[in-house]
């Protein structure tokens, strides 16, 4: 068994068949959703809290 299980392409760079695409909008969405969730949690505790 070789060290590189997928031995056809050279270890390393992205290929045309499997490019890495920027997914910046999803990262931004993650941060926005976290901010919204944190705000919701804070509001929830303020509303029901002592």
């Amino acid at each position: 068994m070789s060290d590189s299980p997928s031995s056809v392409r050279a270890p390393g760079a992205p290929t045309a068949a499997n490019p890495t695409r920027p997914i910046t909008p999803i990262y931004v969405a993650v941060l926005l959703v976290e901010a919204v969730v944190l705000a919701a949690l804070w509001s929830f505790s303020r509303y029901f809290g002592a």
Partner: protein
Amino acid sequence: MHVVDWFIVAAYLLWIVYTGLKRTTGAGAVEGYFLANRSLPWWAVGLTVMATQMSAITLVGTTGQGYADGMRFVQFYFGLPIAMIILSLTLVPFFYHAKVYTAYEYLERRFDVRTRTLASLLFLLSRGLQAGVIIAAPAVILSIVLGFNLTLTIMAIGLSTTVYTMFGGVQAVTWTDVKQMVVIVAGMAAVAVALVFGLPDDVGIGEALHVAGATGRLATIDFEFNLNETYTFWSGLIGGLFLMLGYFGCDQSQVQRYLTAKSVDAGRYSLLMSAFVKIPLQALILLIGVLVFVFYLFHAPPMLFNPVHEAEVHASSRASEYAALDTEFQDALAARRTAAREAVAARRTGDAAAVATTEAAFVVRQQRLTAIRGRAVSLVKEVTQDDSYTDVNYVFPTFVTTELPVGLVGLMIAAILAAAMSSIAGELNSLSTSTVIDIYRRHLRADGTDQHYLRVSKIVTGFWGLFASIVAMYAANLGSLIEVVNRFGSFFYGSLLGVFILAVATRRATASGALWGLVGGMITVTYVALTSSISFLWLNVVGAIAVVVVGMIVSLPSSVQKPPLSWGQPTGS
């Protein structure tokens, strides 16, 4: 348990084992066995990432935490979404393009075999013991609450999981995890609905939550910066960030999950699923614990939730003392119930002064009840000679088995088993991967055929399953061992993260720097943990920083400026 609940639990176990064993045909070679030939869709990988992280300890411990302490624990996860973004940008594409089986395999390419071997041995030790604890915890709880035989419960959890993981490999792990996450979420949602409908007809859920809120249980965010306080916004955001980077980026049980994805983007999406879902899911689980507290405001809970220890006290010379405490507890319960109803009635009038007065009176009643429980716990500790005794982990299982309707009990027991088995399966598969790839193939037999390594992989999976089951039987009798094993994780993750920071972020770090940095990091964390009272979450930060500092200092004499890193190119030291 009712026969219907037994049927549900048995059907669940058979369904999961069958689902796992069906995947045997996809595990005909080592890459298929360990990495599913890098073919899995992002949503399945995302669910298995979540299932591997969420053990039965999460399910029963977190609900118990919500019952006893409230929702502050949700802050523990505040760093997770940011950690997932960082990993999606760095280690996910890095590991994927490096075509490694294990995270530690990469460390040899970057540094040397010593660093790789040390890191993998630390992982094997930590995860191997953790797997035993993950089996032991729910087994102990279910055996006590339901009267199951402990050994048989451990075997049912440990060996059934081992069987399908051993024969089906990572495909079995993933597709059973998908189904187990469905069972877990369905169970929690059903319990939440049952809790809301379990309130008295004249008490609304909002009114009940206001009463719980008076005790501080609904406080979610604490902005105070206090290194000694475990659950604050800052410890969760910063300490939790480092913990999650270490766990999801450097622990093979998670790294292997996204290495099975069909592309780099699929690997990223699988982690980002947790980034979106994890905090709301944990908040729901904690809220269920708070709802159990609310439920018991209007129904009678036991004074202590662990019936075995309670029976020990009843059989001891201090039984009459315990009985007197119980009488006092029943009186305090009735007073608290009255106070809760008065607070609900005051809120209905809209009179702010009346609300404040009645809620303050309720808080006083709650504090009295808590004090009586504290005395009962002290009595149990003295009788049983167990200083670590706590019944928090038995609150939710006791509620499930005594208050839920037939059918729902079976579903929740199945959900607890699902949480345990999904974690164990992922850990067994990753333990086997690291053992075969990092130790056996690297050091003992480098010239084997693929079929040979496949056979060894299955045997090693079976070994780790048996090992974890045996550890579980001992761990069940050594409560403090669970704490020791969990604390070992907090010593380990930060330091290992530091090694990967040295590997990825700078070319100046040498192999000796990485090795001595790792040793120095763990020594520093141990020293800080023993000599200070800072929260364990901050130990991850301490470990990572210590490794980087020590590593860079050791690397200074021989470090040479090199071209920027490229994917997986062997570099040597």
